[in-house]
């Protein structure tokens, strides 16, 4: 039995190996992955790496980058390098958690709509459309205005605004797979609806969804930065957007106050987009399939 189990492991391992090869074949995806890894490491290890606290005062006001303050200081004397590191935590947390929420909602609604069709589908699609046409930024502002600014709130809002696109995609995939022979075969041997949706169709549908979700993360990060930029973000956490707000007035004399947070946002967003592309290659072999 053990030899057989070992072989079962190897089929899975082979899938990873081949997928990784496809991922790595695209140099840009590799660069994106490295960058992303750096940001994640930076965010996770912020308390260890940052020489100062994110809100800690005491540095030279608008000090230029130096050996002590690698990215310089802002108008209050706060170290920008530490700000960028702590800001990475915020951005990554918002990015991944909000998209996680969006996936949960989107897959649930999309799967049910696509699988059952008919009136359930119509209802689900009307609701989805409502969420799709809402202007994201203004809705976020309204909710923040009503409930106050907090990180959880921000995550929740962004998740609420992003699920509709996922639902559409999932619905399309479920519609496409619902009548495939292997699904009918599962119905024929008596599998229940939930079982079919989760264990037969979803593993096939997930590829498109993962790529779309991966692309939503940079959008979420930019949305969070935008909210912080206009002051609607959580005041208790450091955010790149907030750093840009303060930098507005001082950009001309102190370019480092804007450039470093701005670069961080752009690079993180770009690395995520590149990784999403690579994930697409990983999951979807084009010429590899034997026929």
């Amino acid at each position: 039995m053990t030899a057989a189990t070992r072989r079962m492991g190897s089929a899975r391992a082979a899938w990873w190996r081949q997928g990784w090869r496809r991922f790595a074949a695209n140099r840009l995806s590799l660069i994106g992955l490295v960058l992303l890894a750096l940001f994640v490491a930076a965010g996770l290890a912020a308390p260890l790496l940052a020489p100062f606290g994110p809100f800690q005062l005491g540095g030279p006001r608008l000090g230029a980058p130096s050996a002590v303050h690698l990215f310089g200081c802002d108008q209050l004397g706060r170290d920008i390098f530490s700000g960028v590191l702590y800001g990475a935590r915020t951005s990554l947390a918002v990015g991944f958690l909000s998209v996680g929420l969006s996936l949960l909602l989107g897959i649930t609604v999309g799967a049910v709509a696509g699988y059952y069709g008919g009136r359930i589908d119509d209802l689900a699609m009307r609701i989805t459309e409502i969420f799709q046409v809402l202007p994201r930024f203004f809705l976020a502002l309204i909710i923040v205005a009503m409930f106050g600014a907090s990180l959880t709130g921000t995550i929740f809002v962004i998740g609420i605004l992003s699920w509709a696109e996922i639902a559409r995609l999932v619905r399309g995939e479920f519609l496409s797979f619902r009548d495939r022979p292997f699904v009918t075969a599962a119905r024929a041997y008596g599998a229940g609806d939930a079982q079919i949706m989760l264990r037969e169709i979803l593993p096939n549908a997930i590829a498109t969804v993962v790529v779309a979700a991966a692309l939503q993360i940079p959008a979420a990060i930019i949305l969070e930065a935008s909210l912080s930029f206009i002051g609607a973000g959580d005041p208790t956490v450091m955010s790149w957007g907030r750093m840009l707000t303060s930098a507005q007035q001082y950009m001309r004399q102190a370019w480092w106050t804007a450039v470093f947070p701005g670069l961080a946002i752009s690079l993180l967003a770009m690395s995520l987009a590149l990784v999403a592309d690579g994930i697409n290659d990983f999951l979807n072999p084009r010429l590899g399939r034997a026929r």
Partner: protein
Amino acid sequence: MSEAPILAAEGAAVRFAVRGSKKQVMAVDGVDLALHADETVALVGESGSGKTTLGLALLGLRSLAGGRVAWRGRDVASLDRHTLRRFRRDAQIVFQDPYASLNPRLTIAETLRRPLALHRIVPADAQRDESARLLDRVGLQPGALYLDRYPHEFSGGQRQRIAIARALSLRPGLLVADEPVSALDVSIRSQVLNLLTELRQALGLSMLFLSHDLGVVRFIASRVAVMYLGRLVETGPTRALFETPRHPYTRALLAAAPSLSRAIAGPPLAGEPPLPSDPPSGCRFRTRCPFAKPRCAEETPDLRDAAAGHRVACHFDL
């Protein structure tokens, strides 16, 4: 002959709504068909005939707009959950497209394990061995070697064997085979046909064999039912139907079948097949029938006995 048929359609009708319009299509329109133990019935029809829909309806996988499907005498629609589960074990299906009948994300082991686990055919620790045994049985030997691979690593013929193994895993009494060899190469086709015949004899299976290929039908079936635009036009024992076809459509199908024993093929069937959403009144075949008379447009012919066990739906004795 008093034993209840394993599966029977009684006046079965299935309706489809056409996407984007109000039109309805009666894909199956009043069909009586019974499958008894130990026989292979072929359901012959071209695309648009409704044979696949009827096959799925017989398995309870399409809801009926009229009539009923009876499993060993009991109405399938009225079965409770527990009995419905037993029904699912007893009647299984194999599809035409070997490239779409296996879940591409699952290993063969997992594909075979799930029905075994759902119906608790064997205890959990014996499921893997049972799966290997099933693969051996369908000619993929040694079965254990193939369990941990994915469908895309197999050829069409091999995938079809795996699909047959899955169908047989529940030890059914009846197998619905929807064009199981049409998508396979000729040399592989013979292998799979022989496999099906051998399994049927060894396991005492009944088969409902859907096909448009008359040569295969004559080889494998003991009884034949010919379907056109949702209705049966002729039924009977294989030999009688092939030697003395009575319905003009059956004759046209035979004439169209490429054959090496006839020097020239007969003239092709005239006209185009009518749209299923807009069937002709009365006898649906009349628009292409060389013998059509005014009565054919007014009255729909029912199946009537023409000879022993041989029934035909036509107003005239042709």
